């Protein structure tokens, strides 16, 4: 029970991270396509501007909690995904820097260069996170000790000694890229005005339309790669919660997009991400990392958990930390509500 609760908490933190930073990946990928002039580009950056580090903290807090509660999982997964994780880290560095320094100098070349870094790092982040999600669903070549190490690619098949990329994980990565772009477009529609708003709202519709066939495709693929999953999922109440969220999000999203209600569309889009991730997290439970070599090597929440005291003590500080975080969230949502405005001084744009 305790372990299942903490699985839910840890999943909640990761899902919150994706729901928050996903908009930044999306907005970043679309940066070139929705914003043409330097002023418009500053608008997109300002929509992400002061909060990207707050969003990234969710990932950091998730990592710390995972280490405290499921140390063996973190150890095995991080060492196994070695190169992929460092690519993600470097992209994070480049993205953070491009947001922060791009506006410091009002110069076409300077801003053009950082816009390029910004777009590329966000594309890579969306793709890498998508591939990572695909890897969790498909499984990794865990040995009997619960360790694995993986190359970027091997033979592109989904069983045995798999690589990070194969036909399945690549399609999940593409799906992630498109849905996050759709989410980002919906977000930019909400946060901007003028030409950026117009282009984003048009793009949002096309991208969400593209999500539908891709989603059907990856659902079928997932069933082919992991035929055992639906059998577990139907016994998990959270799986139904996830499906419910997805259903609710479809209604909200469609009504928001078709009537031009920007806030409603964004809420729907966020619900969609959350719903899909909840469905996924519930479907794989209690397995946290599936073994493509032998199912009995899989790491489950039960065999990677820390000692019972680690759980008990985390039960003391986590709710307190979460309450404070909610408080900051209220502060942030009030302070940064509404459309963004770009202001500048003699040293650059903020």
């Amino acid at each position, binding site marked *: 029970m305790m372990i299942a609760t903490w699985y839910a908490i840890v999943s909640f933190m990761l899902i919150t991270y994706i729901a928050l930073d996903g908009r930044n990946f999306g907005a970043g990928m679309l940066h070139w396509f929705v914003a043409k002039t330097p002023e418009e580009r500053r608008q997109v950056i300002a929509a992400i501007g002061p*909060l990207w*580090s707050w969003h990234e903290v969710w990932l950091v807090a998730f990592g710390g909690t995972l280490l405290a509660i499921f140390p063996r999982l973190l150890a095995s997964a991080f060492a*196994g995904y*070695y190169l992929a994780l*460092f690519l993600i880290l470097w992209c994070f560095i480049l993205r953070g820097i491009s947001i922060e*320094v791009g506006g410091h100098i009002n110069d076409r070349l300077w801003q053009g260069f950082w816009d390029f870094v910004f777009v590329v790092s966000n594309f890579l982040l969306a793709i890498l996170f998508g591939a990572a999600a695909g890897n969790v669903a498909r499984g990794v070549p865990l040995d009997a000790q619960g360790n694995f190490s993986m190359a970027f690619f091997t033979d592109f098949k989904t069983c045995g000694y798999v690589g990070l990329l194969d036909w399945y994980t690549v399609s999940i990565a593409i799906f992630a890229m498109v849905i996050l772009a759709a989410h980002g477009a919906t977000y930019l529609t909400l946060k901007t005005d003028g030409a950026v708003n117009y282009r984003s709202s048009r793009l949002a519709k096309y991208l969400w339309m593209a999500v539908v066939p891709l989603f059907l495709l990856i659902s079928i693929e997932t069933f082919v790669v992991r035929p055992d999953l639906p059998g577990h999922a139907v016994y998990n109440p959270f799986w139904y919660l996830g499906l419910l969220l997805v259903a609710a999000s479809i209604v909200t999203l469609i009504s928001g997009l078709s009537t031009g209600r920007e806030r409603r569309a964004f809420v729907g889009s966020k619900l969609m991400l959350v719903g899909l991730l909840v469905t996924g997290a519930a479907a794989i439970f209690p397995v946290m990392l599936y073994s493509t070599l032998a199912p009995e090597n899989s790491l489950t929440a039960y065999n990677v958990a820390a000692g019972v005291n680690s759980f008990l003590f985390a039960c003391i500080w986590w709710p307190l930390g979460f309450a404070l975080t909610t408080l900051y969230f209220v502060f942030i949502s009030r302070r940064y509500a509404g459309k963004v405005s770009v202001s500048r001084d003699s040293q650059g744009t903020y």
Partner: protein
Amino acid sequence: MDSNLYDPAFWSRLQFAFTIIYHYLFPQLTMGLAGFLVYWKWRALRTGDEKYNRAVRFWAKIFGLNFAVGVVTGIPMEFQFGTNWSEFSKYAGGVIGQTLAMEGMFAFFLESAFIGALIWGEKRLGPRYHLLAAIGVALGSWLSAFLILVTNGFMQHPVGYQIEANGTLGIASLSAYLLNPWALIQFAHNQMAALVTGAFVVTAVGAFYALRGIHSTQAGLYLRTGTFVGLVASLLVAFPTGDQQAKMVGRHQPVTLAAMEGKFTGGPMAGVAVIGQPNIGARRLENPIEVPGALSFLAYGTFQSYVRGLDEFPEDQWPDNIELLYYSFHLMITLGTLFIMLMMVANFQRWRGRLQSSTWLLWVLMLAFPFPYIANTLGWMTAELGRQPWLIYGLFHTRDGFSKVVSNGDTIFTLIGFTGLYFVLGLLFLYLTGREIAHGPDGEVVPGAGEEVIA
């Protein structure tokens, strides 16, 4: 030493050392500056004097640049626990994960929620909330240091833990773990050292403007606040915090103390070497010049106290790089002493009212700012090299902690990647910070002239 190059632990250690040393160049300034920002913002609110607000606005920009680089270089640190030190994470994750998670939940959320408000929110928030934002950011950055030092304190001096049924470490007492005496002293020592960095940087910028004869009101403010905080903090770094830290090492890691001081043989009236190079092969300190009895007194309270030498410990318990440890420690002490002397002279001149006019002193103050960074780094090298060969002192060896599944090829690749990326990041940071400093605080009205000075 050639065999090191085949050792996976060596490459993972090198990568961790490089990335953490680089990372810590930024938080030490943000933690130090945070104190200045809160103080000036508070003075601005109390006195209504606009010069304090100008100072906050200017330094908040420098703070923001440091904060951003600190954030992006900080995330790799947490990841490396899993990627490069997975055996250590498996063994101790249940304990150290607690504080790493708490750092995110309590410190980083607080800092990152208010950083935007601090840098860009002055007009929208009003002075009171702007002060609150400054306090939030300062509190967050110091809290994050505390939680990281609890983590490090556990690795230096493990307390409050138990061995679980599966052989890994678990927490026995959260309060014992969080209130580890080692961590408390190390925190005090470390935070004072961060204030030294902040003070020296603020002073150096003040001296730079004073020497060029521009921004004279701001220059005066930076010099006054900077030298005052600089003196207090550099005294506190040495005594009581540094002194207590050394006593702690003497009590719990006696072999480390012997290595730090290059003491190959034990005895009473142990001296502190002012000059001397350790020669491990010959087991002696070459051409030593010692202050007799000083080490006995400093570490254990009397000149007659017996200080144990390296020869009293089995060689496999010796720190594995005694030379580097010895130099780190000694250079740190030397620099710390020079900081106190320099700040004493500066405060004497300030008391005489001649701080802004003594050109030679301003030159020294301007050029002195890199040295606290060096001293902070050396202090951390002393702590971490001194802990070797243990990852968790007395419990877990460093050679057992690295990820067995990660090949040297992978680690060297990422090390090269970090080297390149951080080099570019460093250039960028220096360029942008230099640009902000060259631009200076907002133009100020020269008394009498009644016109904006545009620098």
